[in-house]
């Protein structure tokens, strides 16, 4: 048990906004700006209201012989201070709506350059990524073919599915490592087969729940190569904290090279299903939900 006071007190002297993890996505900065705008507005409101509160507390504290002012209020005043915040909030609302449609509505994705499927899973707690394979086309998904051996439910009758590439945790406590190219619009189809998860990329300002029974589209465009963490932000069982993954943003060349290497590792004949079973089997047992 140790305790570092100066680090612990950082909150007291550092500006809140400096605590954001580095932003590496295109729309991320807009969200950060929006946050900053609301933050500055709040700080202003905070100082105004606290100023008034404290001033009144001091000025009008009880004194012998003082008598309070008998006054019930004034409609014009009420009207004014109803209207003022309304304008401020309308402004916040309008600005927010713009950023919201841009970042959340996947319809708005300006033609995705890369499309992948991502699945959160609870038995072992991690993420699986599916790339379309050398043919560039995903195999069709059939909900009734979902099984623990074929979590994506890839239609076994679809040739496009045979070469699909599934990336999973290498086992042990090691997180999955998925690669994506920078400066490309990435479209993620997100889902889950068990409980809710939430696909959280702190550096990209992306967060979206993975809902079983539903494929939800998420998009982002990374601007900087590097190694970024993937987190789960929706309680999914006792291993929820342990759903760490890694997203490696490569230049296009590196990304292509990595994909090629992955294709080689995996024989085209092997059904993708087989791979994932193996992976799930080695998933660390300690983090599996307690079942009875």
């Amino acid at each position, binding site marked *: 048990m140790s305790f570092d006071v100066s680090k612990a007190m950082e909150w007291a002297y550092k500006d809140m906004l400096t605590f954001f993890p580095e932003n590496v996505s295109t729309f991320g900065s807009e969200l950060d700006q929006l946050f900053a705008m609301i933050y500055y507005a709040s700080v202003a409101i905070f100082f105004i209201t606290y100023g008034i509160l404290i001033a009144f507390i001091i000025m009008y504290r009880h004194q012998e012989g003082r008598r309070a002012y008998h006054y019930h209020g004034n409609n014009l005043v009420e009207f004014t201070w109803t209207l003022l915040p309304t304008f401020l909030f309308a402004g916040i609302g309008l600005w927010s709506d713009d950023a919201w449609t841009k970042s959340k509505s*996947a319809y708005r994705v300006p033609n995705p350059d890369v499309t992948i499927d991502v699945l959160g899973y609870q038995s072992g707690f991690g993420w699986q990524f599916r790339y379309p394979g050398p043919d560039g086309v995903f195999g069709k998904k059939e909900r009734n073919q979902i099984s623990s051996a074929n979590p994506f439910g890839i239609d076994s009758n679809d040739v496009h599915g045979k070469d699909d590439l599934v990336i999973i945790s290498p086992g042990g406590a090691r997180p999955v490592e998925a690669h994506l190219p920078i400066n490309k619009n990435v479209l993620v189809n997100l889902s889950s087969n068990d409980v809710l998860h939430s696909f959280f990329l702190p550096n990209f300002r992306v967060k979206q729940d993975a809902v079983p029974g539903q494929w939800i*589209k998420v998009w982002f465009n990374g601007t900087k190569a590097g190694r970024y963490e993937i987190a789960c932000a929706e309680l999914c069982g006792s291993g929820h904290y342990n759903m760490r993954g890694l997203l490696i943003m490569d230049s296009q060349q590196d990304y292509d090279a990595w994909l090629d290497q992955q294709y080689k590792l995996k024989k085209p004949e092997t059904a993708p299903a087989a791979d994932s079973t193996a992976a799930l089997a080695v998933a660390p047992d300690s983090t599996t939900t307690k079942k009875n």
Partner: protein
Amino acid sequence: MSGHHPDSNAMFGSYIRVASALFGLTVLTVLAAMDWVPKSWGEAGNTLHIAIGLLIAVVKSFMVFYIFMHLKFDNKFIRAFVFVPIFLFFVLTFALNVLGP
């Protein structure tokens, strides 16, 4: 004590009338739910079925509320206990039905 409804003979009459109307409308819903819409109407036919069924149910429920449950005669503010929940029903169902992207 209970409400200011008309004298009991008049009430007796309206109870009987309402009950007969309820019986009649019930028969009507069942008839309306028969297979009388031409297949060619497709989806519109289904909607028609649903609309008729619900419409009749709404009419029936208002009869029960207003006559059997005396909303017509009781203090008007009691109607709020019916209409506010109904409003919320629409809010909820509206939001629920705008599902998924």
